[in-house]
């Protein structure tokens, strides 16, 4: 517990290279690491594969990366709130892979949890089946869905201690805790940074062992 995890937003963005696969927490912008995203936009890192629940709105959070054409491929459950994502998809500029939200969450969790995959009933009888193995158990069909990993996860916490333990607030939690387990490098943007011991070990949501670096957020 000796490493100093605190870095600047510029240092954080230096870890993100062209072509990497990046998970970003948030749901329609709530719970996204906006300061890091803004720095990414400023730096113009490109050809990223983005894994996120949605692409927010054109002027909000993850949406800005879309508008700025930094994303080569989007893996998400929903893009309907950001018309630019749809336009880029339709015109063949950006590849979009749509995944049911529960399957997206479970695939990310599977990667973090060392599972080879999970069987879900979701998507059976729909286009989501395409290209996937179906496995029958007790007469019921399931889709075999594979783990989804990233090079980097960018997450956002309300309160983060210097050990990297994260406490989320309200619905800003969403995909952040599972993404924190499924990437090679994890950077958390902290609304508030506190001393070790200030978050009760019973109330830690993401244990500090998952967090490599902490960036001080704006709020």
């Amino acid at each position, binding site marked *: 517990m000796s490493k100093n995890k605190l870095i600047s937003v510029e240092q954080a963005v230096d870890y993100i290279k062209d072509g990497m696969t990046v998970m970003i927490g948030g*749901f*329609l*912008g*709530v*719970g996204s690491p906006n300061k890091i995203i803004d720095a990414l936009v400023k730096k113009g890192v490109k050809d990223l594969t983005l894994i996120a*629940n*949605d692409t927010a709105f054109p002027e909000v959070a993850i949406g800005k990366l879309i508008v700025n054409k930094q994303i080569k491929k989007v893996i*998400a*459950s*929903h*893009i*309907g*709130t950001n018309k630019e994502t*749809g336009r880029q*998809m*339709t015109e063949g500029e950006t590849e*979009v892979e*749509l995944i*049911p*939200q*529960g*399957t*997206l*969450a*479970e695939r*990310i*969790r599977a990667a973090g949890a060392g599972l080879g995959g999970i069987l*879900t*009933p*979701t*998507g*059976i*009888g*729909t*286009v*989501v089946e395409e290209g996937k193995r179906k496995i029958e158990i007790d007469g019921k069909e399931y889709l075999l869905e594979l783990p989804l990993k990233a090079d980097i996860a960018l997450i956002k916490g*309300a309160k983060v201690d210097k050990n990297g333990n994260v406490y*989320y*607030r*309200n*619905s*800003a*939690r*969403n*995909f*952040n*805790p*599972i993404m924190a387990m499924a990437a090679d490098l994890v950077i958390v943007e902290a609304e508030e940074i506190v001393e070790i011991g200030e978050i009760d070990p019973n109330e830690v*949501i993401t244990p500090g062992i998952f967090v490599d670096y902490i960036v001080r957020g704006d709020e």
Partner: protein
Amino acid sequence: MDKQRAREIIAKRVAKELKDGDVVNLGIGLPTMVANYIPDGIDIILQSENGFIGLGPVSKSGEEDKDLINAGGQPVTIKPGGAFFDSATSFAIIRGGHVDATVLGALQVDEKGNLANWMIPGKMVPGMGGAMDLVVGAKKVIIAMEHTAKGKPKILKECTLPLTAAGQVNLIITEMAVIEVTERGLVLKELGPEATIEDVKANTEADLIIADDLKKMEI
């Protein structure tokens, strides 16, 4: 019938399907209106798939919490006794059968209980979000929608749009009818306040079985 009046009839009738203590997930749009018509003495618990139970009313202007939205992105409140969780847990709740009922809109629904409500190829591809998991996982799937779209039937012999889920719909509630999906086919159980059997048949492509105890909708 005026659109607003139709939507009110639907929302009121759906509300009567919900039982005290039910955990319910309401889709965006018309389904969200259902919360306004829950009868006195009935307490339902709303689940919000972005990560909490105990969803309360939309926030008053000026009292919005930046970390608290519903799955449609509106600033909302949480009721006392609610709880937040991450997206994997949220969909564990949904897919695991812990949601008693989900109320969703539809583009098309058919005789086999197939539902299409997430995309129109070449036109609208917003993504399925949580809909596929909700329809597969909820114990009861209620479709709340206007009976026709631009005068054309939405209750079909067979869906032509890409499915959200196969064979999962239990009940269809429109301003003209309450229709149950059974193994024998679609059963017309109730007529809307201004509808006759002939009206419903004329506006429905699917075959309808008329219930022996066909009733007028009480709203």
